[in-house]
């Protein structure tokens, strides 16, 4: 049908066409994979930015749900992007088909590619060389080679999906100021405070937002711990009857813990590395025992010795906002010695509890103003609270309260259960010049005549 020279020239022409189609295919596939990569990156950046923002703004449980949903959306979006890229990925015949359509070549390229492939796979009787119009098809197609140059078929080098990526980056950049503003926000509990003392009676318990027990270690004597457990149990029972040990609660606590840790990681807020030692005191028992022991004994020195200087809080439960659950709260800084929102005040007042009697008067003054609670009674029965420690000074504490989350559980092991009960230190406060020691009231002598009547009354 044709000479070898003619045949070789025909093969060269065919190679030229196939090479051109190969270039078109490379370009189209490059765009396809760009689309996939840009799409995946855009999803990661956009969803990541939103998740980080949510970590700053949302409560742990809500954050966890939102993060999970956003994660699902991101996975779906990324899968979609990869699938789209895979769909756009094409073989040589598909690339030829697209080139045909865009250059209006009416299937010339596709026919050449397909017939060439058929020739390679099976040596049919009707292989392209044996087709009467094969050479005509090659020549005809080659005469239109200007129409199917790769740059004309696909002018773009960069996929349009880059706009999505840019949009995601813009979103992420827009979020940065919000994050930066929140990033410096101090945590209520200062990092350098590692010990504080609280009165169990002043604590309001409610369910903790996180069951992480990394930060707080509670010390108290056995009786106080029992009271704490009772109180927690009572609060738990009162709190809409939620049992604290149900699997659902455990799961929720676990989820909250997970969310909290995740949030901490995302926001850069570090959880307190050193464990805070929380010393619990039960002043009501102290007072009761004191009163039981010496109801009318008015020895100021003795009284001062017995009245251990706990780190007390004079608020009654009615003064505090109604809270439920198992979080220890002390939320009136003006009346709480550790209640300052700022770390300095809290640290200062906390130190008082650990030092001896010669600590500053200010915190004592602040804490002993309200004598309606039993905390104040520990400083002396019969003393004038207004003048006991001299003139009061204005509180320098901040306006915000603080909240410490603890998880109080009874343990069979460990230092708490081993009986290392905390014994509050005794505080001796020196009197200033305008103060005088309490004078005991002299026991009145009962006339002999009346003694019989009194005795009769008590016997009755």
């Amino acid at each position, binding site marked *: 049908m044709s000479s070898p020279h003619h045949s070789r020239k025909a093969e060269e022409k065919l190679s030229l066409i196939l090479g051109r189609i190969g270039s078109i295919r490379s370009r189209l596939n490059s765009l396809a994979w760009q689309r996939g990569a840009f799409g995946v990156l855009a999803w990661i950046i956009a969803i990541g930015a939103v998740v980080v923002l949510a970590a700053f703004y949302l409560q742990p449980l809500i954050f966890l749900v939102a993060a999970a949903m956003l994660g699902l959306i991101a996975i779906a979006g990324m899968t979609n992007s990869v699938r789209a890229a895979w769909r756009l990925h094409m073989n040589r015949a598909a690339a030829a088909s697209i080139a045909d359509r865009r250059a209006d070549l009416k299937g010339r390229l596709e026919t050449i590619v397909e017939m060439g492939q058929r020739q390679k796979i099976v040596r049919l009787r009707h292989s392209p060389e044996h087709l009467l*119009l094969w050479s005509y*098809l090659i020549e005809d197609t080659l005469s239109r080679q200007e129409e199917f140059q790769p740059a004309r078929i696909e002018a773009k080098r960069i996929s349009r999906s880059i706009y999505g990526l840019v949009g995601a980056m813009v979103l992420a950049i827009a979020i940065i100021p919000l994050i930066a503003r929140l990033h410096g926000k101090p945590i209520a509990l200062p990092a350098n405070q590692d010990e504080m003392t609280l009165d169990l009676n002043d604590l309001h318990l409610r369910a903790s937002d996180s069951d992480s027990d990394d930060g707080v270690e509670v010390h108290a004597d056995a009786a106080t711990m029992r009271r704490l457990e009772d109180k927690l149990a009572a609060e738990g029972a009162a709190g809409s009857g939620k049992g604290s040990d149900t699997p659902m609660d455990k799961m929720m606590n676990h989820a909250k813990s997970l969310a909290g840790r995740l949030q901490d990681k995302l926001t850069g807020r570090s959880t307190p590395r050193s464990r805070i030692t929380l010393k619990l005191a039960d002043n009501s028992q102290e007072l009761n025992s004191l009163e039981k022991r010496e109801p009318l004994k008015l020895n100021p020195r003795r009284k001062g010795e017995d009245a251990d200087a706990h780190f007390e809080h004079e608020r009654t439960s009615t003064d505090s906002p109604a809270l439920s659950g198992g979080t220890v709260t002390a939320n009136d800084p003006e009346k709480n010695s550790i209640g300052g929102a700022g770390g300095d005040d809290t640290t200062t007042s906390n130190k008082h509890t650990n030092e001896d009697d010669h600590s500053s008067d200010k915190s004592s003054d602040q804490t002993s103003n309200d004598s309606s609670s039993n905390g104040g009674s520990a400083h002396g029965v019969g003393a004038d609270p207004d003048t006991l420690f001299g003139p009061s000074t204005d509180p320098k504490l901040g306006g915000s309260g603080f909240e410490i989350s603890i998880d109080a559980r009874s343990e069979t092991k460990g230092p708490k259960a081993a009986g290392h009960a905390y014994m509050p230190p005794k505080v001796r406060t020196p009197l200033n010049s305008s103060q005088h020691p309490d004078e005991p009231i002299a026991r009145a002598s009962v006339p002999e005549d009346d003694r019989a009547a009194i005795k009769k009354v008590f016997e009755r």
Partner: protein
Amino acid sequence: MSEASGAEMPTVGDFARVFRHIQAEIHKVIVGHEQAVEELLMALFAGGHVLIEGVPGTGKTTLVKTLGLALNLSFNRIQFTVDLMPADITGTRVILTGEDGRRDFQFQRGPVFCNILLGDEINRATPKTQSALLEAMAELQVTVAAKTYPLEPPFFVMATLNPIEMEGTYPLPEAQLDRFLFKVKLNYPDEEQLVRIISTTTGPEEAGVEPAFPRDESAMRIESLKKLVRNVIAAPAIERYAARMVRATQPANSKFVSDSPKAVHEETVNRYVMFGSSPRGAQALILGGKVRALLDGRANVAREDIEAIALSSLSHRIMLNYAAHSDGIDGAHIVERVVRSIHSARPA
């Protein structure tokens, strides 16, 4: 006179030139009906037959006669009636007395022995008579009294259908309908065309048609052009496309359909079609596509060719159910929907 010169295989350019020449000659007589004329010629060069549907007076017979003149081929016409017998078409054996006085049965050829046969109002004959054409159309031969007589190529049957006056007619059986490559519709001419028809047919001079080939070369030239059509390349993807289109005309719930997940099924097809196109429909698509490709100066079939030819190739092969008749749905409507579905299923 001769457009395609030489005895060699004509080129792609020759084909298009001859085709356009014949087309132009026909349009000297036939006003309008451009698409119908083109499809008629396409069927001729594809080696198929055409069913022409049109109301009376739209130029069906004139068209066929003009085609015969333009091609310079032998032409016969059969007016189908109820009492027409198969032997009236194929021919019969008659007793003839020879010069020596001996009487002998001799086969008297019927009107089917020609190059171009016009079966006018084919639906007025009985199915038995209609079936007489089946063998001639499909096999290009006629068997009478156990003896087979080949037909001279090219053999081209054009049958007309009158869609009105349906009383006393016998709709063509599906098997015979399937033998026609295309079904061409002749509609009423518009006003402009009608004016031209009046002026050309009522004047003192009748429009003359110049044959495209000399009488003795005509058949051979047409056969070589038909061979060229067969050489047009249809890529496997195009063949798959045609196959997919034919499969899409078959309802999914048909017991004759072995479905596969890749089949495209139009809801309209499932609702209105009783039987879809046969494999002959796919052959018609490819052959028609090949002719179209040559007319476009191409040596390959494109999807556009398949889509363009689908309506005339498939519409008469689809058997509709009662729901379609009651809703006024015809085969053309179904094919249009199928083409749209297949087109949208193409890769972007």
